[in-house]
């Protein structure tokens, strides 16, 4: 295998270089278009030759993504992309491996793979397009749909309590957790940039509008921008049209929104403890009518890929692998 090479020996590419010859087949008006454009626009910034970039996806609308990126790619099976990407990343540390997934793919059928990739801190960047609905199968409720959601499979309303993807990722020991909105390209790009720079697993939830089966699900922040609680590391957490609202921690560690003057939390995405990030993740449409976007958590922890490479290196230094010696190890005897 080749040595890592992130020095961008090629001339700097443009977004166009990352477009494939495939016709993009999402529904007109789908939030995925904006995310695709943001990704293609961001890729040149990575300064990684495009042959070293791989997009791996599972099944769902979002999972078509690799077909539209002029990199290496695999459109795999439902929920398994984090597992496949783990094997690829661990065996090829020279690659930049991205997983594109959806709320059903990542949190329902693939929940197990997601949490384990995050806890291991495999060097993969996971983009979860959350539209709170099953789009490809035409409109059944998903594990992020709010309780009571009326869909084709829940005519009397969903009974399921939904996952909060940010809380889940933090609980799964993720070292990088962020949220973005499909249409806010500048903020999405900022989060992508931080995720790419992060060593280890990065988890980004992207609010993505499904205009066919769950239109306007995120209007409370997508359209009503005053409800976006922008998390900026080192900055006080204030939001609202004039910054008139703030977020602070109660004595029990939970987060609350307050109006007017007061002492907002100064955001520390690198906090060694996960609890402040978790507390902020509980601020949602349902609890406060607003929700944070940006980076909840960005901490350093040894990267699985590197740890494995270290073990291989150590073992090779201790004893060269000789096939003949391996086979003849243990008790042998000779017959003449």
């Amino acid at each position, binding site marked *: *295998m*080749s040595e890592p090479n992130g020095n961008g020996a090629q001339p700097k590419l443009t977004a166009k270089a990352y477009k*494939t*010859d*495939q016709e993009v087949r999402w529904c007109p008006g789908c939030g995925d278009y904006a995310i695709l454009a943001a990704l293609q626009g961001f890729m040149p910034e990575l300064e990684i*030759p*495009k*042959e*070293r970039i*791989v997009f*791996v996806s599972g099944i769902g609308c979002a999972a078509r993504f690799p*077909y539209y990126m*002029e*990199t*290496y*790619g*695999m*459109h*795999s*099976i439902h929920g*398994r992309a*984090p*597992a*496949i*990407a*783990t*094997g*690829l*990343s*661990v*065996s*090829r540390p*020279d*690659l930049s491996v991205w997983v594109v997934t959806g709320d059903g793919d990542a949190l329902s059928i693939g929940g*197990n*793979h997601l949490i*384990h990739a995050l806890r291991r801190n495999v060097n993969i960047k996971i983009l979860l397009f959350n539209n709170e609905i099953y789009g490809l199968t035409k409109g059944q409720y998903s594990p992020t749909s709010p309780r009571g959601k009326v869909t084709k499979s829940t005519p009397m309303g969903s009974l399921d309590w939904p996952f909060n993807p940010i809380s889940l990722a933090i609980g799964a020991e993720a070292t990088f957790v962020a949220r973005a909105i499909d249409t806010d390209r500048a903020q999405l790009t900022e989060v992508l940039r931080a995720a790419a720079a992060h060593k280890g697993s990065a988890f980004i939830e992207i609010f993505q509008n499904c205009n066919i089966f769950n239109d306007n699900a995120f209007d409370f922040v997508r359209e009503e921008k005053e409800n976006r609680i922008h998390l900026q590391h080192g900055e006080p957490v204030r939001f609202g049209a004039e910054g008139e609202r703030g977020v602070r921690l109660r004595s029990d560690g939970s987060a609350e929104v307050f109006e007017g003057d007061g002492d907002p939390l100064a955001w520390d995405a690198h906090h060694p403890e996960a609890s402040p990030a978790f507390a902020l993740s509980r601020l949602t449409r349902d609890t406060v009518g607003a929700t944070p976007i940006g980076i909840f958590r960005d901490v350093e922890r040894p990267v699985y890929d590197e740890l*494995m490479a270290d*073990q*291989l290196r*150590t*073992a*090779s230094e*201790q*004893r*060269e*692998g000789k*096939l*003949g010696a*391996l*086979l*003849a*190890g*243990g*008790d*042998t*005897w*000779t*017959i*003449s």
Partner: protein
Amino acid sequence: MAKDTKPVEQVDSVIVRFAGDSGDGMQLTGGRFTSETAVLGNDLSTFPDFPAEIRAPAGSLPGVSGFQVHFADHDILTPGDAPNVLVAMNPAALKTNLRDLPRGGTLIVDQDTFTERNLAKAGYDANPLEDGSLDGYDVHTVPLTSMTLEATKEVEGVTKREAERAKNMFALGLMSWLYHRPTDNTVSFLERKFAKRPEIAEANKRAFHAGYAFGETTEDFAVSYQVKPAKLRPGTYRNITGNQALAFGLIAASVKSGLPLFLGAYPITPASSILEELARHKNFGVRTFQAEDEIAAVGAALGASFGGSLGVSTSAGPGVVLKSETVGLAVALELPLLILDIQRAGPSTGMPTKPEQADLLMVLFGRNSESPVPVLAASTPAQCFDAAIEAARIALKYRTPVYLLSDAYLANGSEPWLLPDVDAIPPIEVDFTTEPPAEGDFQPYVRDDETLARPWAIPGTPGLEHRIGGLEKQDVTGNVDYDPENHDLMTRLRAQKVAGIASDIPELEVDDPDGADLLVLSWGGTYGPVAAGVRRVRGDGGKVAHAHLHYVNPFPRNTGEVVGAYERVLIPEINLGQLRKLIRAEFLVDAAGFNLVRGLPFRASEVQEAIEAML
């Protein structure tokens, strides 16, 4: 050791079974006896038989663990049908194993364990050592436990419990005397094993020596036995289990192909020891990934294959069934992937430590749609080495998932292995595509004329960026395609590619010295007992032909010819007739079956009877 003064009898073959509580160290005892035997140059074959429970209640019937070793002065094929000698460390071991000991067989029991309590746990109303029920056997009641305690009492720093646990070494010492096994290796083994607790090593050594000395001095054993070395092919040998041979074969395939080995696995009986063995050989660049589940294990292996590794996943039936969607993806992606199924008795959880060969139809057909996968099956513990290399070769050459079947019998059983000359193992050529085509775009589904394999261009190769996936692909371009004619073509191409492997594997060999009318056709792990059964029939003057399949998909190209050339075909299988179904369907041959599904390997005598019934 002192020189023997008692008479020595020559015998040509012996079968010894050690049986005791799971905590009694029977596997270790059997393993040591095997090593001593191997060094002596006997041919041998072993079969450990143990419960899935790690430590079932002490003294209980389900907690009995056994280890059978067959050794001889000639070439042998199986661990033997019935022991000549049974060492029973407690009443439960006696109760569960006595039925296998023929009348007149030698029975050695630890009389100290035949207490009221232990007898009750084993379900004995009366003490079999006293009620005459063992009169038909050559019984030796030995106070193994108390003599072990006596032998170790002067060792300081050892508790009574620890000392008592050395009783398996007393038994080993006694058996080593009885069959003239060399003892030096066991002594140095104990010193190595208990290097951190020399007092435990000392207690075990004393128990071992005491057992040997007891044999020499007691009047209870009038004679000892010698089994001369077997005339095996010249060379250097080691004893090897099937799972160890698979692990070595995978490493050899990695070395010979120049591709790093990536193993994705989830612990499962009886496959876990492959993961454990490979995890010890990171110096060969082996990456072992213990995944969160069976699905992730094979998914990670496939991801590694996409990146240019030799991706492998190991499991048993209950895990393999979970891998089928990923194997289907690998069929569509046309990437190399190796899946090892160490079959165990089922369905569902079944009997995890017991062998069966009933996953054949699952690995052939257990996927949605037309999803052809080559299937190979290993035949003996040592042959697992060659089988792993061959399975890897086919996967890499034809860009296909490959199933390699083994089973619990091969996995844990062992036999002497003539070490191969590693330089003589042919290289596995892997031709990654590295250059963009002179004109136009890279076509990921253009095919090699001969193999029908598609190009393997790994990430990191400039100019060959491409996307693959589980959606149907257009021939040549690999673009997503729903055209009906294209789907028909792709379905046929995938099938042809796998079928074409028949021209790249050896023909089915037939062992038919006498011009028989009856062919016995076996596959996989039953090779030993079936070949032994065939030998017995011939020994009695019967005429029978034998062919053994190492490839089940595709079949060797002459299989139809072979099965069609005999008046009758008998297919023995540890299932209800899976290969038989295939042979009948494929070649319209009215094959008969011999099927036992007990979670046990065949006995040679059973195969013999089945053959003779058809002569």
